[in-house]
């Protein structure tokens, strides 16, 4: 438990969660977008996860709060990838909550072997050194990948990040995208070029990777030659990392993300 200047999570977490005491036995997923945690004492907690647009207006936040009041005793949680989660002990509330979320335009999904929401940076909205936009590119890509968000049919979970410059403050993922608009060109507002490249990688991974293989494990197995052949992407000199410290970063590029 946290000690220090911030609040205890028990102050804001769902009361039933505190009662259960975080003593979990196992968890599974009854359907896409729903987690079921079972405690050693037999208590059950359902989590419903839905996608949001990350840059949220107060109307949207209040709408999400209303749904939390109606179904989840006034408690919500946000994930690293800006998904919202509602936790309930009453299974009967799960289905109507999903209906309410989807009716308001929040897709329910992002669990298990799905494509999660793309975490992203500020882009032209607020960055002071952007090579390109972020929110708009992600909107375009999530429209394209929406189907894979609401179903669990990938080999394993697929986490994607995008950044609006090569500093990559967008973080790490199975696919970390640095969108540029010069080499190669990328055209606003629909960003068809980046969508096509990412789409090809997702498609090749989905069709060829073994069950449970993450993106990096799949590429390790087939090799980079196989990757470029299978995705039909052209290998160019721009793919070579010529930075003097590349040997070190390449050797440590498997990330643990908390």
């Amino acid at each position: 438990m946290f000690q220090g200047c911030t609040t205890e999570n028990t102050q804001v977490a769902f009361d039933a969660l505190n009662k259960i005491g975080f003593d979990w036995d196992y968890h599974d997923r009854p359907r896409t977008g729903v987690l079921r945690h079972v405690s050693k004492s037999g208590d059950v907690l359902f989590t419903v996860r839905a996608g949001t647009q990350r840059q949220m207006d107060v109307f949207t936040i209040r709408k999400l709060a209303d749904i939390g009041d109606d179904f989840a005793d006034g408690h919500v949680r946000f994930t690293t990838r800006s998904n919202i989660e509602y936790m309930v002990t009453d299974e009967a509330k799960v289905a109507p909550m999903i209906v309410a979320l989807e009716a308001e335009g929040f897709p329910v999904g992002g669990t298990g072997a799905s494509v999660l929401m793309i975490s992203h940076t500020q882009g032209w909205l607020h960055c002071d050194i952007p090579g390109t936009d972020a929110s708009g590119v992600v909107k375009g890509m999530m429209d394209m990948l929406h189907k894979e968000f609401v179903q669990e049919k990938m080999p394993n979970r697929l986490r994607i990040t995008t950044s609006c410059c090569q500093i990559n403050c967008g973080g790490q993922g199975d696919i970390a995208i640095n969108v540029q608009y010069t080499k190669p060109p990328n055209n606003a507002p629909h960003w068809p070029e980046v969508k096509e490249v990412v789409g090809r990688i997702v498609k090749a991974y989905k069709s060829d990777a073994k069950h449970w293989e993450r993106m990096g494990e799949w590429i390790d197995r087939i090799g980079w030659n196989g990757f470029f052949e299978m995705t039909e992407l052209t290998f160019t000199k721009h793919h070579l990392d010529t930075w003097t410290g590349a040997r070190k970063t390449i050797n440590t590029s498997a990330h643990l993300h908390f």
Partner: protein
Amino acid sequence: MSDGDHTDDAPQAGKSAIHPTPQLDQLEDGPWPSFVTGIKRLRDEGVPGNQKMMNDLLGQLNQSYENKMGYWKGGTVSVFGYGGGIIPRFSEVADKFPEFKEFHTLRVMPPPGFHYTTDLLRQMCDIWEEHGSDLIAFHGQSTAVRGHHVSGLHHRKHASCL
């Protein structure tokens, strides 16, 4: 400092003053929730003091889309009177979008585990409507709550719960 806030008493953005956003308009369809739709709602239905700013936000962002250019100057300690937790931004095209000339991020530490009560969310919305920009990002990536632009100074803010 609040008397320097030049937009709080501003009338709502009139129809004629609304910037056309042909580029951004194309980001409103599709199945994923649209941030453009949300910001437009703030422009049209948000608190009166913030509507003009949202209008200029959309105008500048659309110009970025037209020209493939960002228009923010940043800094680390350049917002007078503020210390850590503020990510300052000053528009380079403030002559065209004066209501959006400063648009800073206020970063707030989220609760552990990113668990919020809906009361807390509403309080944050209320505070940010009064003092900020009506725009908030909640996520756990860098331990903060951001909302755009910080008023109470002479400028506007963007609050973000990172």
